[in-house]
């Protein structure tokens, strides 16, 4: 059987469990910090499938309550957009 630590936690950026655990061991103990250092959660789905898992992993390793970890810093835009849309605020349609 495959090494379970090679399992991807972030499917979009292909970040493994091993990489995430290492980041946590190095002291990155918020979802945002783990994201920054491993790129997990920075892909096209923006952490949709991995954020919760990463929070759980941090909680298991550090004892930090899950509810504290799940309050990640949400920032706009909450959808990935091309830079050009920032420049062309329409007057409104219809």
């Amino acid at each position: 059987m495959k090494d379970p630590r090679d399992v991807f936690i972030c499917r979009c950026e292909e970040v493994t469990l091993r990489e995430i655990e290492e980041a946590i061991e190095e002291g990155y103990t918020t979802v945002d910090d783990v994201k920054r250092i491993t790129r997990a959660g920075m892909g096209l789905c923006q952490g949709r499938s991995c954020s919760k898992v990463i929070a759980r992993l941090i909680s298991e390793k550090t004892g930090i309550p899950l509810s504290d970890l799940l309050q990640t810093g949400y920032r706009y835009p909450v959808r990935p957009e091309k830079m050009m849309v920032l420049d062309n605020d329409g007057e409104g349609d219809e």
Partner: protein
Amino acid sequence: MMDREIVVIGAGPAGLSAALEAARAGAEVLLVDENHKPGGQLFKQIHKFFGSKDHQAGVRGIDIGVQLLEEAKELKIDVWLNAEVCGIFNQNEVWIVRDKERSVTVRAERIILATGATENAVNFPGWTLPGVMGAGAAQTMINIHRVLPGQKVLMIGSGNVGVIVSYQLLQAGADVKAVVEAAPRLGGYGVHTAKVRRAGVPFYTSHTVLEARGKDHVESAVIGRIDERWKPIPGTEIELEVDTICIAAGLTPLVELAFAAGCRPVFSPVLGGMVPVHDAAMRTSLPSLYVAGDISGVEEASTAMEEGRMAGLSAARSLGHIDDATYRIRYEAVENRLLALRSGLFGQKRRDAKEQIVSQSQG
């Protein structure tokens, strides 16, 4: 910048119901959805919903969806599809990107967030192989696109989604090889579980999936028993010949917009995780923001519709479109229906969880 009285974000059952209720009350409504078709997950639900006649019992999700859309058309509600809400500023400016290419800002007096929930992942070796998918993905393929994603299926999770989709896979002609459930007891509605059982599908409780095997696609899956600490017990592995593995491991509310806008969160493990605090009228900690449906806690389509009605009603009333007496009557009607939907073995748990959330909104 354009102005609208009420902007509803998400055109699933909750959002549609909210928009309809608010529009009926006379409010000027804009309904936006990031997808190219409205309806959220409603059009995948080909099974009959539970409840009394009031709750559309005996009616299929697809038919309810058609009905809601027709009503939206009749009321001439403005609907923007392919419209992604990227942010909410100052609690009333909605930044929308249309067709992935142009920004529009809409100033809204009230905003109703009905963004739903997303399927949870289970990270076992091989889970990224083609053939491993969310149960919702399989449901989309068979019920909307009418193609079978595979012939031999392993279902992970025996909750409502797991057993309903298993049943629908059988109806579509697939061979469901097994349903595995990590807990010692099955977790879904008895009616659907019984149907799947009668079809001869084995259920493995206290089991989990250990690995998906295959080169370019799933060819087999290994399942095994787990102990009380959820650890796999060596020697209990079973390899199943499957080409599809569906993950039905619960849903998590899509709350990013709500929290980025400043809504106060509360942790509700029963209802999927972090959710925006809201009162019984579905208003969040920010007076101009309301929530409805799975974003406020994962339940079902029927509760989503009722919550949508509640949010639409409350938002419209706060703008003066409904007088207090009328509001009270309609509010109570919705509340009674919600109570009825939150009864029974499964419903009671959800009801308690909802009451916990609402209690956080006072003070």
